């Protein structure tokens, strides 16, 4: 896969899918920066950033621009869960999850698109989830925020396509990460039965698809939702 080296920013890049993605993109030859909240990963340019703060986002982009040049590839990956059945879910929890997963994507994409417009080039990749399309009991807030990314990304694909900017969504299925480690064994076994490939994904398997979207090979792909879920979400 030929790859033009780019300035890349991965939000939430200090663990899980984000870290695997950042490492895969660095290996592909890109200049990779990651945002983190508590601990910066080794070997990558770490910029401290809480994506729920517009000021933080602006400052973090400034730091990346100073070190690596304007961001050409944005991977909006930072996200949180706060699972609870609807009747026990507070409005505060719903809003907090939507703010961290959806509004934060708006913050970083808006900030990134400014220089992408000037450059007449950009790659926006939003990390969503299979539950965006299938729904998930106990995940109304999370699923709603991740589904919102689809409409958001597709709108940007239409708005910015004429300027050489693509916008795509990657929808991972059940991945072995810190965020899914909380699920009980019984729930995990039940979930595995519904996955045609019969196993969970490694974070690297998601990272490979994001790396494809950042590469020259994906130049005609925009407005897409790429499931990387072992077949879990088929038909949606």
């Amino acid at each position: 896969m030929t790859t033009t080296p780019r300035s890349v920013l991965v939000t939430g890049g200090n663990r899980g899918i984000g870290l695997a993605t950042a490492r895969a993109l660095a290996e592909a030859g890109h200049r990779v920066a990651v945002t983190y909240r508590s601990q910066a990963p080794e070997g990558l340019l770490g910029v401290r950033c809480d994506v729920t703060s517009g000021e933080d986002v602006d400052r973090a982009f400034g730091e990346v621009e100073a070190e690596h040049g304007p961001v050409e590839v944005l991977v909006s990956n930072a996200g949180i869960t706060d699972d609870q059945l609807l009747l026990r879910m507070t409005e505060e929890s719903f809003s907090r999850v939507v703010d961290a997963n959806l509004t934060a994507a708006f913050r970083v994409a808006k900030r990134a698109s400014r220089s992408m417009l000037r450059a007449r080039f950009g790659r926006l990749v939003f990390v969503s989830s299979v539950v965006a399309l299938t729904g998930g009991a106990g995940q109304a807030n999370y699923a709603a925020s991740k589904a919102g990314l689809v409409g958001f990304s597709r709108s940007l694909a239409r708005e910015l396509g004429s300027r050489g900017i693509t916008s795509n969504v990657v929808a991972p299925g059940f991945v072995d990460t810190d965020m899914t480690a909380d699920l009980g064994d019984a729930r995990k076994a039940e979930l595995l039965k519904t996955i045609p490939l019969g196993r969970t994904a490694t974070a690297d398997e998601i990272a490979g698809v994001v790396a494809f979207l950042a590469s020259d090979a994906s130049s005609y792909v925009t407005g897409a939702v790429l499931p990387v879920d072992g077949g879990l979400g088929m038909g949606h």
Partner: protein
Amino acid sequence: MSPAEVLDVLRARAVEVLEVAAEDVQPETSFVEDLQVDSLSLVEFTMDLEDEFGIELSEDELTDVHTIGGFADLISRRTS
């Protein structure tokens, strides 16, 4: 900066960002009707001028701006 000076800057930026001929950029020139500028190009042009003059223009301020001259007046007011 006087409206005339602002107009000169605006004309130069329009030639570069909107890719139009300098003689087509007059105070009464309409962005949409005369220059056939699409909405995204207008946003890019506005961003460019915000950087050039070190100001931020709100949507409210821009609502009534339809011509080059109107834009020059707005910037002139904001930078005086």
